[in-house]
């Protein structure tokens, strides 16, 4: 269907992101912010940072999921509109990293919500985040 193809094209060209810290040490958050600066210019790919989960398409999630943040993470995820995607940024978000087994940590982001793309690194480089977003979009093409 031509309409479906146009809609899919529009989705690939305009991924709006929202950034959520589910218990990270802040290093990955700083790298996410660095990726949004004019130096990396992610607006070339149509990426915009949105404040409200209702506006965003991609949830960029950093850090291991702590027991406290788990409910909040799920609430934010549920407030997003379909179709929605989740990117786990950093080793902690992928697998809880060094915090794995910690008394207050549940595990990686995928223990709370479904994750579409994992970007390992401690902290991840902005280039790696952009690469991950582009790869996620590439996987949505078909």
């Amino acid at each position, binding site marked *: 269907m031509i309409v479906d193809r*146009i*809609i899919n*094209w*529009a*989705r690939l*060209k*305009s991924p709006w992101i929202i950034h959520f810290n589910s218990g990270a040490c802040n290093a990955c958050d700083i790298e996410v912010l660095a990726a949004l600066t*004019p*130096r990396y*210019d992610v*607006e*070339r790919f*149509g990426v915009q*940072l*949105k*404040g*409200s989960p*209702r*506006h965003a*398409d991609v949830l960029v999630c950093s850090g291991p999921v702590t027991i406290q943040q788990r409910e909040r993470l799920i609430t934010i995820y549920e407030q997003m*509109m*379909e*179709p929605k995607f989740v990117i786990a940024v950093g080793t902690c978000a992928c697998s809880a990293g060094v915090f794995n087994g910690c008394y207050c940590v549940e595990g990686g982001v995928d223990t709370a919500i479904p994750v579409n793309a994992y970007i390992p690194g401690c902290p991840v480089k902005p280039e790696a985040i952009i690469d991950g977003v582009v790869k996620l979009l590439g996987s949505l093409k078909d």
Partner: protein
Amino acid sequence: MGLALFYILIFPGFLFLGFLSLAFEFIDRKLYARLQNRVGPPWYQPLADLIKLAAKETVVPREAESRLFRAIPSFAMAATAAAFLYIPIWGKTSLFPFDSDLIVILYFLTIPTLTFFLAGWFSSSLYAEIGCIRAMTQFFAYEVPLYMSLLGPAMLAGTWSVSGITEFYSSNPALALCNLPGLIVAVFATQGKLERVPFDIPDAETEIVGGTFTEYSGRFLALFRMTIDAELVVASALIAAVFLPFFIPASPVFGFILFLIKVFIVVFLLALMRTALARLRIDQMVGFCWRILAPLSLLQVLIDLLVRGVLVS
């Protein structure tokens, strides 16, 4: 009947205005990017955003007033599109000129701000309510200087019709230079009306999530974004018609090209302001509007009164 529908739906109504507003959103964002020394979005970016939002799931919060929540975006878009009908596009006169259409355009341009307030209020969300009250506070600050800055040129021209004002100044181009303070005020006030940096206090995403539009999603958000883009075009075209009425040729084609160039100049000024300035606090914004913009627009009225006195005598 058929012709009226053509005017409303195709040219210069919804379709044409939609096309123009997407084009100028792209120009604005590209200018913003280039001024920040980066590449910026590709040309289809506003269209892709619009289609994506329109195709996305749309949710009305349970707490929200459902019917108004759905209806308000259409009101905003309709008011902006109606204002566009009274602005000269290809020459000195608009499609339906009548006496005092300047006031009507200003009223139509007021309606989107009121709908932003209502949209935030009926969302019944904390952030949206803070945003909508800020929008209203800001509205009372910039609206008076904006009206007064447009009052000056109208007084000098001796007419309330945009077409009459354009006609007057294009036959006496030197007199348009008297309106320089008014142009400055109008550009600042337009920035406030469009809720862009430095006056993006109502939807300050670093403080209050998404501001007025926090709860809006999908096609309603798409309509609001279209409205703001269309408002950018309409307000810039109004400023161009009132303050930059130069070199209007008789041929409609060249007139239209000149119209685009003038709107581009105003959009460039707005984009420059957006790049160079940072967000103000709401009290600083109100103070700026009442202490600087309002006296400046009064000065504009005074200049125009004096010049008119000299012309008449």
